């Protein structure tokens, strides 16, 4: 029953707003490849040192990659820290949910509120209130990533589906 309702809803969305669904799928695919890239060392052994160096280099631009702060699976660790991984996984989860559900409109206040736990965690670790915890860093990143993704999605969908701003530019 529930599955039928979800299916009907999805079909309706596809029929009514194909551009929106396409935007969501494209964005999610890009995010998937980005996440796959930093998970690669934990999934498979890269037998090419140049590819490995290039991948590490790409992610080093967006993350400090300190080994103690990266999540390890077996002997290999991800190419980004726990906080960044949390942000991307949060965005990916929000992206998956956005394919089935109506995306709520995210206000600037919500965006700022979602950044507060992350900012506080950074501050507390820097000031020595507590030591770095991969769990806390991931959790705060997860919330922030999800909200940022939904905020971005709203803006992209406004750009593609609605009339542009009536500004005086």
């Amino acid at each position, binding site marked *: 029953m529930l599955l039928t309702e979800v299916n009907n809803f999805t079909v309706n969305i596809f029929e009514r707003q194909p551009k929106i669904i396409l935007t969501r799928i494209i964005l999610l695919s890009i995010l998937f490849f980005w996440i796959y890239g930093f998970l690669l060392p934990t999934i498979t052994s890269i037998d090419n*040192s140049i590819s490995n160096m290039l991948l590490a280099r790409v992610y080093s631009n967006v993350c400090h990659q300190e080994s103690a702060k990266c999540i390890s699976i077996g002997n290999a660790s991800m190419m980004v820290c726990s906080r960044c991984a949390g942000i991307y996984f949060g965005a990916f989860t929000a992206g998956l949910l956005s394919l089935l559900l109506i995306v709520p409109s995210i206000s600037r206040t919500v965006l700022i509120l979602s950044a507060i736990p992350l900012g506080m965690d950074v501050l507390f670790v820097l000031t020595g209130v507590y030591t770095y915890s991969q769990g806390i860093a991931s959790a705060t990143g997860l919330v922030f990533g999800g909200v940022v993704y939904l905020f971005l999605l709203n803006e992209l969908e406004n750009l593609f589906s609605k009339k542009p*701003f009536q500004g005086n530019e």
Partner: protein
Amino acid sequence: MNKKYLSALVCGFGAAVLTTIPGIQSIGCCLLAPVASVVAIYLYKKSQTGLLKIQTGTGILLGLLTGIFAALFASGFEIIFTYITRTSDLVTSMPQAEKVVKEMNLGPGAEESMEVLKQMVSEIQSKGFSFLYTFLITITNLITYSIFGMLGGLIGTAIINKRSQSI
């Protein structure tokens, strides 16, 4: 110079300078390029008197330009530092990479690519410059900073426009 390019140039340069400061990246993480784009949009809006709203496309373009400038300056700084110090991240991480390749016994493909890396390292240590290394860091910088710059541009436009609406 067009004010659009000027604000992107200033913020791109600022972001590139920040990337060279040790410790900044451990705080800023992936937020340096997006924040630089937001500031570029803010400066652009400030410079255009009477501009009420910025179009999303303009915001993304500004973010992209900021990312490109940041990537070019960051690459430039890295090339200069590499030339002066005759060392780089690649040189310092080489022994570790060699150890991993030997331990994991990854086959002939790994050996061949290791040779190319060794050549880059020896060029950096002897001349302070490797064309392949320069090309690779510039390309990787351009890809990541452009993507994150555009994201910052999109978010920044929305934040600044909403702020204008509420004032």
